[in-house]
């Protein structure tokens, strides 16, 4: 930044003594906020992204999207039906997870399998009952469609569960003591019913706040640079921190509003538990919102135009928040270099806070550590944005 430039501004401020007074400062700020708010009202697409998109996403994730397999189609091949095969088929029929269809030969079943009509194929050969009642080890052939590896794994687990339960019942009926030597007693903390909705909806808040803070803000501010109205603002007596505050305040309010909407719908409609304190949720959300706004502001300054700003915001903020934050995919399972990259994604820290606050409660170690990371990012981003504002002026 040039000293001369700074000098003229200071001189100007000194000559007009009302400019620096608190009352004048407040008036300038309020005026700017009012102008921004008017602008949001005038173009309803901003309000759409702040309120329509959250509702759409909430409904999608609350009702539409689920990682929990259900109604899995199974082609159940019984080459020679008898009481034993009927009891195994009955076990699958009773499970709400499966929709078995019976086949007599493997060829027709394979056709249904390759036409993607069923997820798995269970094959009981003609000698099944004989071997079951003979020396044991009767094979049950299971072929699963492995294209979706995750669903294949979970679906296989469910098939194994039905099989284990059926086997125990069958042995009891025959009066054979064949209890498995080791039994696993799983206890899933925080989400005993293992509902994926309880896991996805809290993380969604981070995605939405990223959208509003970074995408919307970067485009709005980039438009001002594009049209030159930002330069016009900068030659008014307004100071840079005031300008930033005035520009960001309405979007801060929008972001917090959509967060509250998310919490209300999530807790009220979807019955997602909020086990931590509301105060911590508000405070950490405000912190994250400031980080997101900082990113948006910085992107707008770098990009100079709306097209580049929009693309940059999607690529550097939205997509990483979706993929690299732990929102859906577990960070711990990613390769080390990707895990390193995830450390510079602010949403990562906020998603960790959100998932803990909603499902586990106030775990201070997690809240404080992640908030500290967000605080550092906020200072860096807003500081850098402020510096870049000055540079753009020269």
């Amino acid at each position, binding site marked *: 930044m040039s000293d001369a430039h700074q000098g003229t501004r200071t001189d100007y401020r000194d000559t007009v003594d009302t400019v620096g007074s608190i009352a004048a400062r407040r008036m300038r700020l309020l005026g700017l906020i009012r102008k921004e708010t008017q602008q949001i009202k005038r173009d309803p697409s901003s309000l759409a992204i702040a309120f329509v998109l959250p509702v759409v996403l909430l409904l999608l994730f609350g*009702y539409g999207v689920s*990682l929990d397999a259900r109604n899995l189609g199974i082609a159940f091949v019984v080459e020679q039906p008898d009481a034993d095969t009927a009891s195994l088929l009955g076990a699958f029929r009773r499970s709400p997870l499966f929709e078995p269809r019976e086949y007599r030969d493997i060829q027709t079943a394979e056709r249904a399998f390759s036409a*993607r009509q069923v997820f798995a194929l269970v094959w009981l050969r003609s000698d099944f009952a004989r071997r079951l009642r003979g020396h044991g080890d009767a094979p049950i052939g299971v072929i699963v469609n492995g294209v979706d590896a995750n669903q294949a794994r979970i679906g296989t687990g469910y098939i*194994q569960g039905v099989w284990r339960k059926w086997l125990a019942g069958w042995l009891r009926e025959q009066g054979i003591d064949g209890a498995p030597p080791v039994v696993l007693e799983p206890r899933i903390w925080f989400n005993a019913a*293992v509902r994926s909705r309880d896991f996805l909806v809290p993380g969604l808040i981070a995605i939405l706040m990223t959208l509003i803070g970074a995408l919307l803000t970067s485009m709005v501010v980039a438009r001002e640079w594009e049209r030159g109205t930002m330069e016009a603002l900068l030659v008014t007596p307004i100071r840079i921190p005031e300008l930033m505050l005035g520009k960001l305040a309405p979007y801060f309010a929008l972001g917090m509003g959509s967060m509250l909407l998310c919490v209300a719908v999530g807790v009220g409609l979807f019955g997602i538990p909020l086990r931590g304190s509301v105060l911590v949720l508000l405070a950490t959300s405000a912190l994250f919102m400031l980080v997101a706004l900082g990113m948006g502001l910085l992107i707008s300054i770098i990009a100079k135009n709306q097209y580049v700003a929009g693309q940059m915001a999607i690529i550097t903020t939205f997509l990483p928040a979706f993929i690299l934050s732990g929102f*859906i995919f*577990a960070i711990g*399972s990613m390769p080390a270099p990707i895990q390193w990259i995830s450390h510079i994604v602010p949403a990562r820290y906020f998603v960790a806070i959100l998932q803990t606050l909603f499902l586990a409660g106030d775990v201070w*170690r997690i809240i404080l550590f992640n908030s500290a990371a967000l605080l550092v990012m906020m200072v860096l981003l807003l500081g850098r944005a402020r510096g870049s504002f000055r540079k753009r002026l020269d």
Partner: protein
Amino acid sequence: MDVVARILSLALKELLALLRDTKSRLILIGPPILQLFVFGYGATFDLNRVPIAVYNEDRSAPARELVARVVGSPNFRLIREIGHDGEIAPLIDNRRVLAVLHLGPHFSQHLLHGEPAPVQLLIDGRNSNTALVLLGYVREIVTTFGTDWRSAHGQAPPPAVLKVHALYNQDLRSQWFIVPGIIGILTLVVTTIVTALSVARERELGTFDQLLVTPLTPAEILLGKALPSVLIGLIEGGFILLATLFWFEVPLRGELGALLLGMLLFIFSAVGIGLMISSLATTQQQGILGAFLFLVPAVILSGFATPIENMPEAVQHLTVINPLRWFLIVARGVLLEGDGYASLANTYWPMALIALISALIAAWMFRHRMA
């Protein structure tokens, strides 16, 4: 002849506008490549070296054998062996470990007396998916341990056993599932946004009115705007496909032509939707937000990460108007399941229909707005 020349010159102008400055060029080339690699490696549902803790109160040989099998699996990484109950909660609460395996003091006693020996597994359920997958892994190890123990102690094998085999993706690699999906997502995002903004930009700057007073008809303008987007989509999609095959080494088991035909129809439908958005948008902000309001649900309801079969019936019906849903079937079908033209015909015509209808709506909207 004139018509073709007019359309081509508009398309050329459009292409030049897109590639004019370095930043715009970079934004078209750099990010898709970056995303392909970050997502290709980052978007995984597999569990690799997940931190766990063991609380073993039974120092006997069978107990240690079972623990060794769990800890020795490449899916897990032993962070700590703990000595009392109180250590469990902080480890899980603070996300130091994803699960704690607990063997009580009488584990081997039960085992030797032929009573079912309990093994506790405490799992952090904050990520419900990893919790289920982890449970599946441990259950498999425990079941195998039980079977081995029985046969080692001269007991009869269980009367029936499951022999599970995964077709198309034998090792159940998430990457083979995710990377073909990324071809669709990146192609859709780039094509839709480029198209949606091409008209909106001219409108915002006022140059669209100038276009309208040229000899070009509205249909010609639309074609001229669509052509560069199709070209960019094809280059983008083709490049990502090459990386899928040669970098990520996803197999190509079906007919390549069937995949390329699907990609072309998919790009047509993305361009059609982009034009529809641009016919509604008068500013770039509206254009990009409109594209977003389409893209986000399109990606979520495509079966990219969460299966369509898990969605409620009504939502499943809704997905038929989503071109990405159809393209994902084509990409995964050709690459993994060995599909050809015949078995994919039922995905081609929905995409063609989406392209046609959206283009017609866009054309109608343009004429309507000008009148």
